């Protein structure tokens, strides 16, 4: 199973047509897959809160949005999540690379990893953690759940899920 393709297939099947991204090494494959699809308008953001603003506008314009970003971005998007996405009650699937977890080679990434779930819990954001490749089978249901409840929902995807961290 190609998990990049599976993730983007599920986005398309759930009518997600507006995707913004801030890159991470672990997310390169899924970003490339999203960019390649005709059904998806992909717009890179310079910062994740900017991307959440774009997603809010796209949602109000009738499109289903999603953001693909790294977990370090939780540190810069809390205000936006609370005062825009949650306050105005908008859905936002957040596909997040969970850096600093098992198989992480960069020590500094652990410093935000240890706060990631606590911050998401503090914000009452429904959070799912993909650790094994097969965990991706739940993605379709998570998307349906997100657009059912009109909330931001976090899908944390760690290095083990992506099959390691490459050759570093």
């Amino acid at each position, binding site marked *: 199973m190609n998990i990049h393709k599976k993730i983007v297939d599920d986005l398309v099947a759930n009518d997600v047509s507006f995707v913004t991204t801030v890159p991470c090494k672990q997310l390169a494959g899924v970003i490339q897959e999203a960019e390649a699809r005709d059904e998806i308008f992909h*717009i*890179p953001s310079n910062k994740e809160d900017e991307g959440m603003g774009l997603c809010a*506008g796209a949602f*109000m*314009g009738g499109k289903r949005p999603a953001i693909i970003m790294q977990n370090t971005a939780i540190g810069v998007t809390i205000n936006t999540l609370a005062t825009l996405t949650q306050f105005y009650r908008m859905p936002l699937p957040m596909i997040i690379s969970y850096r600093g977890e098992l198989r992480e080679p960069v020590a500094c990434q652990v410093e935000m990893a240890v706060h990631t779930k606590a911050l998401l819990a503090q914000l009452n954001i429904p959070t799912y953690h993909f650790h094994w490749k097969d965990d991706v089978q739940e993605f379709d249901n998570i998307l349906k759940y997100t657009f059912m409840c009109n909330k931001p929902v976090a899908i944390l995807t760690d290095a083990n899920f992506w099959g390691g961290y490459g050759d570093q």
Partner: protein
Amino acid sequence: MIRSEILKEIAPILNPHLVVCNIGLPSQELHMIDDNERNFYMLGTMGLSSSIGFGLALAQEKPVISIDGDGSVLTNLGTLPTIANNAVGNYTLLIIDNGSYGSTGDQPTYAGMKTNLTDVARACGCDNVIEVQDKDLGPVLQEAVDSDQMTIIVCKCDSGNIKLPVITMDPVVIRHRFMEAVKA
């Protein structure tokens, strides 16, 4: 002219269109001058008016005007390259540049010092950037909305505020009626 005087003058131009309005006094002023379902008032999240409006413009075909301020654009400067590189003709970004953080007590911004937002927008790749003095804004805005080319307007004006109550409308109501207006 100060921002509230400008908004009063351009309200008839804004009225038929979808408007995303910046946090704080700009939204409170627009709400007082011409509250309608085509206005999306930001109650928080400084800096994202341009991003929300741009996402909306990308997602549908009606004209969209984001009303932003110099301080807010400085907060989210990364927005300008994104807008420049994905330009759409139904989008107008109106930056009301009074050189100050109006809603917080008129502290000076760097846009009122050495930083020129018109030059910044051009350097970020925005093709159609117009700097205009407050009294001349009306026709420039009308032309920007009517044209097929995305326009960034930097409107230079005086700093200064009027006293206004906060918007007490529920955010979900603001969002819902706005989305109905988008669909209408």
